[in-house]
Structure formats: structure tokens, C-alpha cells
């Protein structure tokens, strides 16, 4: 058991090192997010009332798009240099590997993103009292996006003809998330029930994720 915990800690240490050395790609994503927000602001015009009306929707769409940018990095490197096989040989089942990868993706990619969200809120002139709700909904939503990203990127490990389909898969399954989390910002009276629904979706994706992406990983490793 202690041995296993040690392996876990080592896994996260290694992930930390990897993401730190590749931090420029996370920075690229964040830059993409902000540049896209700028283009929105320039194309709509800097009218505060319109921007604050559309702001949350714009932020969600761009958040979704920029998180699909990093899909390729999710498993591809570890898959190509054989680390996934090594992890499996060291006593992690494929399902567990997927859970750990999802958690580390959330910590090292989505959390830096979330830190920059309030700045985007200011740019889109969203009032301060809404920021709290936005952060909560994005927090839950980004975990869901990590799970969906894990599923779609593991599906496309051996796909070298049409990689774009991975983004489409993520976007399709994130439609309910967007519906509920944008609704959450409009209505404060049923905040609790909307949060519960988002949490329910989160549980479902988190439950499906290891099985679907584990099966895909296994498939990819066996057929490579």
C-alpha cells in the first residue's frame, strides 16, 4: 500500500516536471483565449451592455475551444515514448492511469486557466458580483472538460488522418454543460439546483471517463 502511494506521488511529481517544462503550451492556450476575446470585443464593438450580456457565453465558447487545443498533448507524448506501457507494467491499470492523467491535466492545465478568468471578466465588463458564480461554474465545467478531453484524445491516439474529430467529440458532449452553466449565471434563485445538476454531469463523466479512455488506451497500445 505504502509502495503504491509512493508510486502515486512519483507519478504526480513527474507530471509536474513535465508540465513545468512544457508550460509554454499552457501559456499559448491562455494567450489564444485572450486574443480571441479581443477579436470578439473588436468585432462586436465596445458597448458595455452588449458585452456583459454576451460575456459569459463568449467566455464559455472560447474556454471550450482553447481547451480542445491541448488535446493532442494529453496522452500523445507518453504514448509515443512508451511511458504508458511502463506505468502499466509498474502496476497501474489503464483505468487508473486515465484517472490520474485527468487529475493532473486538471491541476496543471485548467487551474492556471481559471486563475486568469477574472481578468477576462473585467475585459468583458461582467460585474464583480457575478464573478463568484462564474468561477464556480467554470471550476466544475473544467473538470468535465478534462474528462471529455481524456476520452476524445485517447480515442484519437492512432488517428493520424483526421485528428480534428477529437475536438468535435469534446464540443458535442459539452453542450449540456454549457446549457446549465450559462443558465447558472443568469438565475441566482435556483443556483443550488443548477450546481447540483452540473455536479451530477461531472459525476457521470468522471465515472464513464476511465472505462472509455482506458479501453481506448489499451486498444492503442496493443495495436501500435
Amino acid at each position, binding site marked *: 500500500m505504502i509502495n503504491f502511494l509512493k508510486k502515486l506521488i512519483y507519478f504526480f511529481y513527474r507530471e509536474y516536471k513535465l508540465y513545468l517544462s512544457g508550460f509554454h503550451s499552457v501559456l499559448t492556450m491562455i494567450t489564444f483565449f485572450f486574443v480571441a476575446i479581443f477579436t470578439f470585443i473588436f468585432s462586436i464593438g465596445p458597448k458595455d451592455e452588449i458585452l456583459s450580456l454576451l460575456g459569459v457565453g463568449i467566455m464559455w465558447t472560447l474556454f471550450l475551444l482553447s481547451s480542445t487545443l491541448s488535446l493532442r498533448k494529453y496522452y500523445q507524448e507518453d504514448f509515443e515514448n512508451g511511458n504508458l506501457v511502463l506505468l502499466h507494467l509498474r502496476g497501474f491499470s489503464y483505468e487508473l492511469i486515465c484517472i490520474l492523467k485527468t487529475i493532473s491535466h486538471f491541476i496543471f492545465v485548467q487551474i492556471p486557466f481559471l486563475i486568469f478568468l477574472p481578468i477576462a471578466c473585467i475585459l468583458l465588463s461582467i460585474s464583480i458580483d457575478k464573478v463568484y458564480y462564474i468561477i464556480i461554474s467554470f471550476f466544475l465545467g473544467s473538470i468535465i472538460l478534462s474528462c471529455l478531453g481524456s*476520452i476524445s484524445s485517447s*480515442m*484519437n491516439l*492512432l*488517428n*493520424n*488522418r*483526421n485528428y480534428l*474529430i477529437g475536438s*468535435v*467529440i469534446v464540443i*458535442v*458532449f459539452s*453542450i449540456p454543460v454549457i446549457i446549465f452553466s450559462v443558465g447558472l449565471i443568469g438565475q441566482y434563485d435556483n443556483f443550488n439546483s443548477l450546481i447540483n445538476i452540473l455536479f451530477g454531469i461531472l459525476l*457521470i463523466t468522471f465515472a*464513464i471517463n476511465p472505462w*472509455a479512455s482506458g*479501453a*481506448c488506451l489499451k*486498444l*492503442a497500445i496493443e*495495436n501500435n
Partner: protein
Amino acid sequence: MKFLVNPNRFNSLTDLILKPLMLLSISLMVIGLIFAFFLSPDDYQQGSTVRIMYIHVPSAWLALMTYFIMSLYSIAALAFRIPFGFIVNTAVAPIGAIFTLICIITGSLWGKPMWGTWWVWDARLTSVAILFIIYLIIILINFSFENRLVREKIVAIFVLVGSVNLPIIKFSVDWWNTLHQTASISKLSSPNIDTAMLTPLIIMTLAFIFIGILIAILRIKTEIYIRKQST
């Protein structure tokens, strides 16, 4: 029942029933259309527009049925290692997509005169649109992998993940306030459709089912043939 999982048995059985099935489905379609357009009465509210129902409802049922069959075959293929399931998945997905498309198009043609709009974003319409996109993605995955063994397993996994949408479509009209009306025919209560209108609906549904099966058989046979050639 071996023909449902064994390609050779499937081929020999379908060789026998293909011609009768073709005759049956064409004649049912003709009878159904005659019933739908000439012999069925006008609705007390919707007048003649109700005849769109005889195409809209069967195609919607079949769109859901096709996905349900695909998910059953995906479970069979992944869990019990029956490769025939992969063949069915590849062959049947475009049929489901076409039925969904027919359902969406006829529905919007029906919605314009009755509701006063082509399209609204209520729960039923949105979930059916998502079903159509899921079918499209399945077809696209079939084109994107070089390795067939990988591709068909990925399709099966994706079908299973996408099947969360099925209960949402089915119960969307009961769970939420939607512009779309609730189901007229359900197991628990007697149908809310008069017999004079139920008959053409049932005939048309049977015709759609048989035509669906017919195209599916042809496509599955082609798929089996292609696989035999390539191995």
C-alpha cells in the same frame, strides 16, 4: 438465432429472404402512403397537416431504434468478442443518420404551419439534433483511422458513450416543458390516437422498419464482402 451474430449464416439466410422482404416493404410502403394520403381522416385540430405524422413519427422511432440496436451490438462486440457487431455498427450508422435527418426535416415542415416556427431550441429538438451530430461523428470516425481493427473498436466505444443521449431524447418531453407534445403512444396507457389514424401510422411504421432492415441487410452484406476481400 445464430444468423444475428454469424456472418455466414447471416448471408445464407438473407439470400433467402431478400426478395420477399423487398416485395413486402415496397407493397407496405405503397399501401401505407395510400392510407396516409387518401384513406385517413383529417385531424380535428390540424386538418390535413397531420399527415406529416405518418412519416415523421416512424422515422423518429427508427432513428432511436437504430441507435439502440447499434449500442446492443457494441456491447456484444466489446464484451463478448463478437466481430459481427462491428460490421453492423459500420453498416447501420448512415441509415440511422438518414432517418434522423428525415425526422428533423419533416418535423420542421410540420412545425412551421402548426407551431408557427421552423425550429426552436426546446429539449426534444435539441437532443434529436445532438443525436444527428453523434451519427455524423460515428460515420466520420469510420473514415479517419487507417487500422480497421482499431477503428471499429473505437466506434463501438463511442456508440456506448453516446448512448447517454437516448433516455434524454425519450423522456425530454415528460421531464421538461417543451413545445413538442408528449408521446401519443405509450405502453402504460391506451393510445391517444383514433384507430382510423393509428392504422396508417402502424402500416407506415412497419414499412419503414422493413425498408430499414432491407437497406441494412444490403449494407451488411457489402461490409462482410469487403472484409472477406481484405483478409
